[in-house]
């Protein structure tokens, strides 16, 4: 009898699960797993000498100029043609106009070796791509007005990136018979070398009534 009294009474731990579930739900709700995401870009290094701003000479045929003005209209001009987009729907090709994305793809590919589009150069990209002609020197110059809205600027940027992503996806299907996202790091680098993003963001100028 006395022996039994000295024994520690067992702690009732049945509510422990409830308490820990409560804590768990609290942290589940509080923890913000939201990772930031966005369009990655690389800025050019600052000019070494303020007075001698280096200018890179680009042949006119290698240049696709995308202008966004103060009224958020977009103009895309190559040596072949010039197209105006009044609003975002036209930019996406929802109207009767060819979308900016397709314009960019046509410009980067230059499948028909048009002398007014960027010059094609044979280059070796390693197996299994081999030596293929690419427009290695093309440049897409994105210029904006000081009063262009950030929203439009981003949607234009987005279209440019989308064009490259689609080209890369097509190349991945063609050469590796796989989706781009399933490729290994090395294979991705190969494809990226095939279609490097050559977007230049110029300093803003005043176009059409911007102040």
């Amino acid at each position, binding site marked *: 009898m006395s022996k039994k009294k000295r024994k520690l009474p067992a702690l009732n731990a049945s509510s422990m699960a409830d308490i820990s579930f409560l804590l768990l739900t609290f*942290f589940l709700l509080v923890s*913000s797993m939201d990772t930031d*995401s966005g369009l990655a870009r690389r800025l*050019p290094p*600052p000019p070494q000498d303020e007075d001698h701003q280096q200018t890179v000479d680009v042949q006119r045929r290698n240049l696709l100029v995308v202008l966004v003005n103060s009224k958020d209209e977009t103009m895309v001009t190559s040596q072949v043609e010039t197209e105006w987009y009044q609003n975002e729907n036209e930019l996406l090709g929802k109207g009767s106009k060819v979308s900016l994305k397709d314009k960019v793809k046509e410009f980067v590919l230059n499948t028909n070796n048009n002398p007014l589009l960027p010059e094609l150069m044979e280059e070796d990209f390693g197996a299994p791509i081999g030596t293929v002609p690419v427009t290695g020197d093309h440049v897409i110059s994105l210029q904006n007005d000081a009063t262009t809205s*950030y929203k439009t600027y*981003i949607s234009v940027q987005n279209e440019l990136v989308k064009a490259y992503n689609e080209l890369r996806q097509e190349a991945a299907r063609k050469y590796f018979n796989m989706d781009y996202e399933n490729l290994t790091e090395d294979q991705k680098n190969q494809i990226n070398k095939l279609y490097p993003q050559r977007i230049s963001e110029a300093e803003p100028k005043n176009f059409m009534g911007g102040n």
Partner: protein
Amino acid sequence: MPELNTSSMPDLVFAILFFFMVTTTMRSEELMVRLKLPTATEIQKLEKKSLVTYINIGPAMDPKYGTGTQMQLNDKFAQVEDIQDYIAQEKSSLNEADQQLMTVSIKADEDTRMRYISDVKQALRKAYALKISYSARKSEN
């Protein structure tokens, strides 16, 4: 019917609990500008959070600071000229190998004028923070 032994249940739950406690990062900075991020489809996730520096741009939440575009670095409003010091300070807090990998995430309100963004971009160039990301929300089409 044999009863299920649930005595290991608290241990399991505690294990999950500790996982969440360790991974969760309490939001340390309070947003002082109104941000409605633009939408985009081709966005990429920013990989390592510790390498990302944020610049928030938008109209101030508190009307006493005016209605114009303001920039928030850490917990206070700043001018474009302050960016270089801010970047240098953030850079020095990283170890040398990671300094090149530092990414600056520009979180700007979609109604911001490009003039402001361009000024910020020029300042970032001068500060040699060349890896940037235009923060955006995922949109459907």
